[in-house]
């Protein structure tokens, strides 16, 4: 709870600090706020005392704290990584960072809600600032398109969600997760409830960008600025999965036989559509968009097989997978920011590894981790998710491994491009700030050793 309040207040302070027209000051305030929120979260967890504990709408249990803390860390990394593009326009430097902070408040609510009311509010607080941020570059027509597209599809999915919530309320007579679960357990589930769950699920798949609700994501990803794309594919996904877990593996767990087959199909489709579409992409952000669809497919494997695990472990598996995925994405986002290329062609990555050998190393680590090559963290993420699912669904895991084989092709071609000698020798160096080095170094070190030192929670 402290974290939420801290972030909200920091957001407002950031807006006021922005009047001074000093982006650095905005960055410092935001960083302090984010670190403060993280510390607050840790303190609450360690001491076990929560602020406003009598308020039942939000429940920061250990799972929520796990997902919230990584959301805060990744937002901090993204603010540092994209500090220059975010503050390029001095008039709006404060707005952009403040919007990110407000959106993060929504992410925190999404991880900790206990009733549909808070869930809905969290989802909206998470989404609305990002609609604006997607169109951050006002002169860019693609950016405006992305913003509008994201807003329209997002608003539509919100409508579907509300509709679903209404049906569930009709079936169970409550908004509270706990009471809904009781109602499902005590009464035979009605078709009213099934329709509600289906609609809620559809809107979820919309938010995390799973097939068949994935069409918005390549366009929106490729139109948005790199940093915002990074935010969409890390923090929003983490928050989305946290909420998905809370709703489906707890509240709707008694009717698992109804939603499980759907998610299995969605998972397989997401993997295939994501990986096969990514092969032919020529733009980096579109490639990342399709690869993120594929990764959503892998992650959903852990959701469908949650009942095979000892209590709570599947949370950790999903968290670990998304953590590894997000770290690699942030490295790519940071390098993309450094290349600073509006066209966003993969061609323009040619030779970045030659310009600076460290960048070459970072590119190798990031993409191999996404592909799941050991000993990087991405491999252990796949390991956790796949071993969890293999007992019950060996064929699906076989398909997922086949997909990892497809995926290595396009990841490898990017690596090869980055290491290749550029056709035209350019003397211009990559412009990388100290903060970006810190971000990349942190991510790479965690990816390299994370598989061996991160203790099992």
């Amino acid at each position, binding site marked *: 709870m402290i974290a939420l309040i801290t972030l909200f207040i920091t957001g407002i302070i950031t807006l006021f600090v922005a009047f001074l027209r000093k982006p650095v000051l905005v960055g410092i305030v935001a960083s302090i706020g984010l670190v403060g929120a993280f510390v607050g979260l840790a303190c609450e967890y360690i001491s076990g005392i929560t602020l406003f504990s009598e308020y039942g709408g939000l429940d920061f249990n250990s799972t929520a704290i796990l997902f919230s803390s990584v959301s805060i860390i990744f937002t901090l990394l993204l603010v540092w990584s994209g500090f220059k593009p975010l503050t390029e326009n001095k008039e709006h430097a404060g707005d952009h960072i403040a919007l990110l902070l407000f959106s993060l408040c929504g992410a925190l609510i999404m991880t900790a809600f206990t009733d549909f009311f808070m869930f809905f509010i969290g989802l909206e607080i998470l989404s609305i600032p990002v609609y604006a941020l997607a169109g951050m570059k006002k002169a860019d027509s693609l950016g405006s398109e992305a913003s509008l597209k994201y807003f329209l599809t997002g608003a539509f999915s919100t409508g579907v969600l509300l509709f679903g919530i209404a049906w569930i309320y009709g079936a169970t007579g409550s908004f509270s997760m706990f009471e809904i679960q009781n109602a499902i357990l005590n009464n035979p589930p009605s078709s009213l409830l099934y329709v509600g769950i289906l609609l809620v699920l559809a809107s979820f798949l919309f938010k995390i960008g799973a097939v068949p609700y994935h069409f918005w994501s390549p366009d929106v990803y490729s139109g948005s600025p790199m940093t915002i794309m990074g935010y969409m594919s890390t923090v929003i996904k983490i928050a989305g999965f946290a909420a998905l877990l809370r709703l489906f593996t707890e509240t709707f767990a008694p009717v698992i036989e109804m939603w499980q087959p759907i998610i299995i199909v969605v998972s397989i489709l997401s993997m295939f559509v994501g990986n096969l579409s990514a092969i032919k992409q020529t733009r980096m952000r579109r490639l990342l968009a399709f690869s993120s669809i594929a990764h959503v497919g892998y992650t959903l494997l852990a959701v469908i097989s949650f009942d095979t695990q000892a209590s709570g472990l599947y949370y950790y598996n999903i968290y670990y997978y998304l953590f590894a995925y997000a770290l690699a994405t942030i490295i790519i986002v940071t390098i993309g920011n450094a290349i600073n290329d509006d066209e966003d062609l993969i061609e323009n990555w040619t030779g970045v590894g030659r310009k600076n050998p460290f960048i070459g190393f970072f590119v190798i680590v990031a993409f191999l981790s996404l592909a799941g*090559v050991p000993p990087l963290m991405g491999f252990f993420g796949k*390991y956790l998710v796949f071993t969890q699912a*293999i007992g019950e669904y060996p064929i699906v895991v076989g398909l997922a*491994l086949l997909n990892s084989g497809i995926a290595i092709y396009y990841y*490898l*071609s990017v690596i090869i491009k980055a290491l290749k000698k550029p056709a035209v020798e350019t003397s211009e160096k990559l412009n990388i700030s100290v903060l970006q080095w810190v971000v990349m170094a942190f991510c790479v070190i965690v990816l390299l050793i994370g598989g061996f030192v991160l203790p099992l929670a």
Partner: protein
Amino acid sequence: MELLILPLVFSLVSLVIPKNARKLVALLGALTSIVFAVVHWANFQPDSFMELYANDGNLFKMSFRIGYDGLSLAMVLLTNIVTFLILLGNYENPTASNRLFNSMVFLMQFALLGSFLSFDLILFYIFWEMALIPVFLLAYWFGEKDRKKVLITFFLYTFIGSLAMLFSIFYIGSLSSSYDHEVLVSIEMDVKTAWIVAFGFLVAFGVKMPLFPFHTWQAPTYTKSPMAGTMLLSALMLKMALYGVLRWLLPLTPEAYHCYKYLVIILGAIGVVYGAIIAIKQDDLKKVFAYASLSHVGLIAAGLMIVSIDAFSGVVIQMVNHALVAVGLFLVADVIERRLGRRNISELGGIAVRAPKFAFWFTVIGFASISIPFSSGFIGEFLLIKEILLDNIWLGILVGTNLVFGCVYVFRAYQLSMNGKKSSFEFNDLTLSEIITFAVLALIIVVLGVYPQLLFDLVKPSLDTIVSIIKDSSI
């Protein structure tokens, strides 16, 4: 533990030392690891297991057990010696003072040692995959032109093969409480489960060896890689697969052993004949030796499936022999290419007159590769062919043709390149570092050919264990 860590340290160190010292430091590094391995060998009791590290922290069900028995130690010695010889043979090349080159060779050595020392399946997989990256980068940075497509094929091929193994690993892991070698060996499976698990392993090992239908990546990759890359691939990386069969496939899935026994023997036999026939017709020296390697490995793979102590001893000594001969043969190709800029047999000829020392050492390595008596190859091929003959006479005759075909392609390559009319081109004779490389190779081959007990004493207890595991459960 220093056995494993040392190459990693040298891999990092070689990135920072100044240019003129790089060659020497790399050689010294490789020499140090040999010394460490020999010290371990001297203190080793053949029938014991030496544990270097273990951590039962229950992280990912891994035990992180690193250690060695006789078989692993033999492979470690082989890896360290061959790495040293690769660096020594490469001493005259400009790549020898490239920091990335040395770094990648040591990283490769680290990954190989790791996979030989791992007694935890996930750890084995980690090192197995890790070995792919340095050899890919070596070939990518220092290889010949038009290599990109070939290398992507190579990476995809082996990576997808490994994913099949990963599936098996996850599958067997879901039946077990830990990925530790002992725990996995003690699992009882029904034939169907064992077959599913074995299939994944077979695909991965078959691609890496390579066995007959999975061999298409081999010749192009060997040709496009730089010399050191080719040597690492053929001398060491494929030993990982053969070692993997001995250490993991056979002990883990003895229940399905009778299902895949003849499958592998027949594929191996096809590889023997097929590789040899193609090798006879090749013009590119590197390709001749690449297909020769396919042929030799086919024999080893077939021998792996005969469960007896003689066959396994033959496999181990033939693994060592193949590694040494591969280094020798590819060095021959590189010596010619370095001096003339080409290695097509049809454009060579008459080198023996210009370079008598080179001709001598080529002959020695050539004889070793066709396994004449007093070379280690003789012991290995004799044991393998004998055991396959005893199992099935027709298959034995088929793989026995290896000896005949071997003579044909090696002598053809030798005759057309070294003999003939006096050449029109200059050819400088071998330098000191190259002579030392050849001499060390020849020395080890002859010592093992005269006194193979040296190796057999080391590996026999581990092989006995493997034989007894399979015998116990398949009856």
